[in-house]
């Protein structure tokens, strides 16, 4: 509890000590954290692999962008809209797709992510999506005359939603739904025998997971101020999966570590080598996977456990 409070305090101080550009980067990291949390529910807790969450990220982003651009909806109102759209889209996609197990589901979601950019360019949708040109958005100013610049305001706005989404996830995961998810992952036959409606829980998980990713997409679009089909290629989906695994499967805090990883490590890799940035990124990835096989969250948990054990032993000795 104290740790969480300290982290929150540090997060609130952050935009006042770093530059606007860094604040913007941390805003993006928060956005990724929400998306990773959603994917982690699906992959980490429910054991379903999705290679297509970039598609829900894009749907969320486009929902926000189209509402702002075409219908003049204020930016904050687009977040719940994106959430609803993605919840429904995810649930509907989940219904048939969940008859597919493991790798087959991964392929089905992959197909979704691959086809979406082409769909966004489709000329009958162009009047809304802007085609390849995409949509340019305006940056929101701080409301109520708060003494914050747009970057700082957007950071706090994103932070507030992130906290809300994390609390919500924490509640879902330790409740009935969360236990059902984990039971299905570990022993789906036993879970069914216990009376869990497997298909329903799986579809619901898919829907909630898509909703989280969609909210992240909407926030991302507002922060970047631009959406275009090229922003949402298959790589987004793969990076999200990388973030989940690196951060730590089936861990809420893992989403934050994973988000920091996918936001900052590619930049570090680019700074090390222009010629082969992705080779450097690959080395980082291999390093993390070997050193921390349970993800960063797993490594932190083990370190804490070892320290407290040591402390207890010491206390028990005399």
């Amino acid at each position: 509890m104290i740790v969480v409070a300290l982290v929150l305090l540090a997060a609130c101080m952050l935009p006042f000590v770093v530059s606007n550009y860094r604040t913007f980067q941390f805003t993006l990291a928060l956005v990724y954290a929400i998306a990773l949390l959603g994917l982690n529910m699906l992959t980490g807790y429910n054991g379903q692999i999705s290679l297509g969450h970039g598609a829900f990220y894009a749907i969320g982003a486009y929902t926000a962008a189209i509402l702002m651009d075409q219908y003049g909806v204020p930016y904050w109102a687009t977040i719940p809209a994106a959430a609803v759209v993605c919840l429904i889209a995810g649930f509907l996609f989940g219904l048939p797709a969940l008859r597919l197990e493991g790798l087959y589901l991964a392929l089905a979601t992959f197909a979704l992510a691959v086809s979406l950019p082409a769909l966004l360019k489709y000329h009958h949708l162009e009047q809304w999506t802007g085609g390849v040109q995409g949509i340019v958005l305006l940056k929101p100013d701080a409301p109520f005359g708060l003494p914050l610049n747009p970057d700082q305001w957007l950071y706090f706005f994103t932070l507030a939603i992130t906290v809300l989404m994390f609390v919500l996830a924490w509640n879902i995961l330790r409740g009935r739904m969360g236990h059902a998810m984990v039971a299905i992952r570990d022993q789906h036959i036993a879970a069914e025998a216990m009376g869990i409606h497997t298909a329903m829980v799986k579809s619901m998980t898919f829907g909630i997971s898509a909703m989280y990713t969609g909210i992240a997409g909407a926030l991302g679009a507002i922060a970047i101020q631009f959406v275009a089909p090229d922003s949402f290629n298959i790589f987004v989906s793969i990076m999200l999966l990388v973030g989940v695994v690196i951060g730590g499967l089936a861990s809420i805090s893992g989403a934050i570590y994973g988000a920091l990883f996918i936001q900052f490590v590619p930049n570090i890799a680019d700074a090390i080598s222009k010629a082969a940035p992705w080779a450097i990124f690959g080395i980082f990835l291999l390093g993390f996977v070997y050193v921390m096989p349970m993800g960063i969250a797993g490594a932190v948990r083990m370190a804490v456990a070892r320290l407290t054990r040591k402390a207890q032993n010491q206390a028990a000795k005399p």
Partner: protein
Amino acid sequence: MKMKYVSIAALLAAALASPTALAQKTIKIGNTNPYSGPASAYGTIGKTIGAYWKMVNEKGGINGRMVEWISYDDGYSPPKTVEMARRLVEQDQVLLIFQSLGTPPNSAIHKYMNAKKVPHLFVATGATKWNDPKSYPWTMGWQPNYQTEGRIYAEHILKNNPKAKIGVLYQNDDYGKDYLKGFKDGLGDKVSMIVKEVSYEVADPTVDSQMVQLQASGADTFFNITTPKFAAQAIRKAYDSGWKPTHYLNNVSASIGSVLKPAGLEKAVGLISTQYIKDPLDEQWKNDASVNEWKAFMGKYYPDGNLADASNIYGYTVAQTMHQVLKQAGNDLSRANIMKQAANLKNFRPETLLPGIRINTSATDFAPIESEQLIRFDGKEWKRFGAILGK
């Protein structure tokens, strides 16, 4: 300890100082390029330009100042471009951003650069929208834009075959429509010469059915506005179906290696396209001073670079243009003056441009290169013919 604080304070003060004050000692030029991702083949442009500044610095810089080239990878992904552009402007405090590559990445930062009033110069895309000094006074393109090129083909058709019946195939996006608009503007009141126009989507597997429609329309002239993969298909189909029209191919797909070879060189004979930079593989430039100068530059400063890759001579040529603007700016390295000088290029000629092509800009004309020369494929290589067309 105290010293440390003092130096940190000094650093902070330096970081907060106005960018132009910093720029007095070195000239910081920012750039984004796709060193990774789907368009990474273009990344070599950024490397060539980096090598160019290295050469400039070794020769004493520009008006005694060294150039600092800061180029980041954006992987052709617009969100990454936004992040990197902000890093360049806000953190690295560059004087300007030069040659950021790709239409979607540049669209993503278009508003930002103009809101920040940072020069966004000679962007590496052929879209026409970069020439809009009224709404976007801080952004400027460089290469002949798609509309300019479309007009050049129209000009040639009107002159050589005023009775032509034209069929057009175009990619259904802003790039394809840009070309088509220029082409129609060029035809003017003769626009009815176009007997059929059909489009395709990037996601389409082939353009075969479109080609059949065009052939059936009775057109005898074909304007082919397609990207490399589709261009190769269209060239093959136009030949195999026995249509064999007078075939104009947009410059985007004029690569022998990636388009004409896959289509079949014998099927590409007679194709007409345009060029504005000297092709280093062309035999006639074997003893050309500027091309040899470029080759020597590549050997010394960018030995890994491929001499057959047109992107490398392109990078060298566009860097000379930037060099000229900075030379003209003299000691007034304010952002306003940089834009003023960029809009004040008069008959400037990097010698690696085709003979007769000159760069002209003004406060109302943000399109540096507006002329090209037609080329015809003879089965082995492109051969230039006719006069320089355009403005």
